[in-house]
């Protein structure tokens, strides 16, 4: 009964309950946002395993900071800000680790993670198609991964999450015009990398 009531509640209302350590409300919130958050992180990190770990970390942060949450901005803005910051920190840590040990290439890592990707659709008909699709996906993820962190966050928030410039600006703590510039540069870079060079 309580679960059914939670389903109809707004994110902000649920957060009020999560602040009082209501696990049912928290579960509803996780169910509602787990997929978009997971995909957002996957596009930023380019690694499905890493994405699952980080997505769990995002929701744990939500649980821990729920008591101090103030619904000044939209819940999703707050949620994606946590996710963006976690990803940026993780990428920074990975870059430092990579700098110290140049052994493992990103490609190898993603190959090992690929079996854990649960594709939404059943995928293409033939193994060749599947291979081509996987290769293309990898190229796009690599190109996104090569963008500077701020451009990468902005383009994924826009293209994947469909957020407005104002929401992206709030998440990234930038002005709307700065977000516009970031998106123009990100699109140019991706075009150069994936279409012009093809």
């Amino acid at each position, binding site marked *: 009964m309580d679960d059914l009531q939670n389903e109809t509640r707004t994110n902000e209302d649920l957060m009020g309950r999560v602040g009082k*350590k209501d*696990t049912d409300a*928290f*579960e509803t919130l*996780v*169910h509602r946002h*787990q*997929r978009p958050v*997971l*995909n957002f992180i*996957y*596009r930023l990190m380019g690694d*499905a395993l890493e*994405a*699952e770990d980080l*997505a*769990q970390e995002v*929701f*744990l942060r939500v*649980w*821990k900071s729920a008591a101090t949450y103030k619904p000044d901005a939209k819940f999703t803005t707050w949620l994606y800000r946590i996710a963006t910051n976690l990803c940026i920190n993780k990428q920074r840590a990975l870059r430092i680790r990579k700098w110290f040990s140049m052994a493992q290439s990103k490609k190898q890592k993603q190959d090992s993670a690929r079996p*854990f*990707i*649960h*594709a*939404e*659709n059943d995928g293409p008909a033939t193994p060749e198609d599947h291979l081509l*699709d996987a290769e*293309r*996906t990898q190229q*796009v*993820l690599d*190109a996104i991964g090569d963008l500077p962190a701020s451009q990468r966050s902005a383009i994924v928030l*826009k*293209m*994947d999450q469909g957020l*407005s*410039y104002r929401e992206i600006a709030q998440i990234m703590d930038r002005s709307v015009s700065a977000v*516009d510039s970031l*998106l*123009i540069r990100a*699109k140019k870079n*991706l*075009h150069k990398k*994936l*279409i012009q060079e093809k």
Partner: protein
Amino acid sequence: MPFYPEAGSVWIVMNICRNIRRKLSKYQDGELSAAQKNTIEAHLRSCKGCSRYLEDLAHVVQLFEVLPQIKPASMFSGQIIDRATRAEEPFWVRTLGGGFRLFPAPAAMAMLAIVGLLAGAALGNLLTEDRLYPSRSFSANYSSQSATLVSLSVFDAVPPGSLADGYFKMASRNPEHNHEM
């Protein structure tokens, strides 16, 4: 003479195109007002270069469409709830694990008994002098004799340095008795 106006017009056209292209990303993302949108669309109808630029931007959007949507594993939310509820537990319960969660009272009693035994043994061996066993303080003349005596002490009912030895010493500690000895 005609050169200057022509060059000027090329420059003006280039400048217009540059301004339009700067706004095409926003136009594509639906971030312009109706008036700005109309201006852009009017320009696009007459400018092939800017139309091509918009097509390029559309290709970038298409790139995102090839990316697969991944869905969380079935136990994803369960794991989060589990981790979240564990985060609420006291530090010692989190550190010592599952037994405490299932049987908190017996586990706490067992833990206290173990800590008590270890602390008692350590205190007994450290604080009590070896007065009950004068034979153990016997100093052998030769190292081989000493080694034999030490090795034989393992057959004692209460070997020196053991847990029981510590307790025995603590329990038997009596100032009057010590004085007599």
